[in-house]
């Protein structure tokens, strides 16, 4: 019985650990993937139409803008807690002292906001594009006193113009000019290296575009798309009322985009497909792996239980034969053996469950660097799995027990 309890405990601990990690892994992986940047972009409706018609990249400067004063509303949507980070962008062309023209991009670096809900938020590219390599200097600090006269220069511009951290940069835009202190030089490994990043207000002043932004990048925790999400992404109007409610109340990228469009006037929010799809695929594969490990551990436990219970019945064959001889029906003996095994399973299962919570925390700390939350759903799932596996493991022993003839075991001469 001790061995049976141990086997069940082993299976239950693995199942608990895997199911706990599986149910928590979505958030964990999403958080990990946030390091790869925004997964939703918001642009003005006109820009979106032109972009779709002529396949123009988002680096182009357009005449349509979003309203800066609506940025805070993004944190008021239904899935507000899933909005991890976001930053606005306003691109304008500006001339350097050398006469060369560069794209100057206004954005938030580490912008502090007091939201309409009374909450506070620090957002910006500093966390949204955490993979940028600051090769010289440091990230600009928007909270500093001279926060408007700072710039982060792309590595290619810096190389071409001979700019270093600490230099003063004079830029002339369509509607104004500014002297900026170079806080740092970054290497993004992309088109951004050809640009100069300045605070949003500075870019607005250079282009006479006060209160305007041309795009917003949003990093949100999303649920992998399914058929419903894909259907909704094509046309939310095609959903039935119940489908709409389900979709709206699930953190699909498409439903979060839809809710952002509701609060940002004349905007089009679109998921960045590569990021959203990668998140979904990684999540699904990880969860599949967990399910597979759970399944295999349960098979292992069932085989172990099968051997041990069969051995136990063989060992007790004389006792079982005696019970049959003195008038016990098969049902009564089966009930006796099953209740013994199930009691053992409960003890083993409880022990295994708590061990499994420990394993889950070890996995969480080791792999994700944080604790794995215990989902209440794991308890009934593990209980059902333990009972099913124990019953399956008992099948051969019960068959043997039913076929056991008292005459074969009681006359031991």
């Amino acid at each position, binding site marked *: 019985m001790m061995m049976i309890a141990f086997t069940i405990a082993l299976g239950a601990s693995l199942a608990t650990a895997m199911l706990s990690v599986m149910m928590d892994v979505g958030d964990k992986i999403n958080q990990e993937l946030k390091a790869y940047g925004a997964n939703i972009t918001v642009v003005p409706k006109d820009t979106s139409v032109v972009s779709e018609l002529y396949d123009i990249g988002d680096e182009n400067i357009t005449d349509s803008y979003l309203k800066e004063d609506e940025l805070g509303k993004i944190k008021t949507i239904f899935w507000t807690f899933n909005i991890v980070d976001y930053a606005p962008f306003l691109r304008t062309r500006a001339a350097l002292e050398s006469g060369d023209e560069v794209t100057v991009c206004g954005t938030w670096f580490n912008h502090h906001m007091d939201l309409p809900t009374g909450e506070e938020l620090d957002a910006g590219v500093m966390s949204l594009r955490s993979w940028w390599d600051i090769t010289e200097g440091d990230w600009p600090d928007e909270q500093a006193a001279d926060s408007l006269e700072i710039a982060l220069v792309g590595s290619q511009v810096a190389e071409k113009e001979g700019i270093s951290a600490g230099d003063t940069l004079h830029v002339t835009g369509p509607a104004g000019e500014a002297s900026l202190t170079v806080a740092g030089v970054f290497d993004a490994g992309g088109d951004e290296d050809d640009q100069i990043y300045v605070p949003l207000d500075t870019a607005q002043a250079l282009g006479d575009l006060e209160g305007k932004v041309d795009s917003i990048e949003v990093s949100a925790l999303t649920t992998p798309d399914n058929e419903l999400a894909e259907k909704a992404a094509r046309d939310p109007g095609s959903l039935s009322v119940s489908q709409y409610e389900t979709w709206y109340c699930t953190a699909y990228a498409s439903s979060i985009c839809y809710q952002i469009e509701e609060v940002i006037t004349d905007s089009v929010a679109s998921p960045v497909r590569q990021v959203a799809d990668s998140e979904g695929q990684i999540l699904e594969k990880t969860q599949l792996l967990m399910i597979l490990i759970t399944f295999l551990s349960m098979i292992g436990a069932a085989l172990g239980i099968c051997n041990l219970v069969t051995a136990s019945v063989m060992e007790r064959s*004389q*006792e079982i034969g*005696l*019970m049959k*001889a*003195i*008038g*016990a*029906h098969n049902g009564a003996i089966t009930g006796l053996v099953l209740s013994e095994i199930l009691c053992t399973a409960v003890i083993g299962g409880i022990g295994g469950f708590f061990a499994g919570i420990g394993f889950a925390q070890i996995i969480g700390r080791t792999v994700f660097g944080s604790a794995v939350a215990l989902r209440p759903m794991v308890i009934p799932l593990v209980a059902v799995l333990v009972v099913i596996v124990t019953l399956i493991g008992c099948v051969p022993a019960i068959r043997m027990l039913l076929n056991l003839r008292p005459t074969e075991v*009681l006359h031991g001469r």
Partner: protein
Amino acid sequence: MSLLELRNVSKIYGSLRALDHVNIKVEKGEWLAIMGPSGSGKSTMMNIIGALDKATEGEILLDGVDIAKKSASALTDIRRDKIGLIFQQFHLVSYLTAVENVMLAQYYHSVPDEKEALEALDRVGLADRARHYPSQLSGGEQQRVCVARALINYPEIILADEPTGNLDEANEEIVVELFRRLHEDGTTLVVVTHNPEVAEVAQRTIVLRNGRVDHETINPGFTGKIKHITLQ
């Protein structure tokens, strides 16, 4: 009407006839001994009479009812309600005390009653050993617990398979004395034995050979006591 009657009962295992057209009658309250050499069919007959096995052919009338064609479940009910079994190797459950072993038979029959079980143990002289486990009892004491277990549900017939086979002479005497008292109380006893001294104390002895009834002897001077032992 006989309590038990076997009519042309045969048991065939492949090409072996363990029992070959056996006819036996056991009257109510009778003490019958079945003897024979190894392989003569004693245990097979015991199993068939005890509803532990089915005959290949023939009729087995227990209290006027033919149990030969009954289902396994019905045979279980018959064993539970009408038959008390005593085995050579005792077959007590090792993790139950003497009284609990007796109550086990009650459990599958009706409702366990400790008082009644203690009385049964008292009848076999083991009232003071009721809380002992089988490992703490001598062979004779274990067999007496078996007798108490066989008696507890007031069966119509007690079948004892080599009840003294594992006992020394002193314990053999005690068990036979128990049988004598049961017989005096009107219990029907069928005792399978290869020990002539145990067979001789019965009212009647049937000798089996090659699956057939070889001969039958009546004990004219029946006392229910073993001759070579002086009872205290």
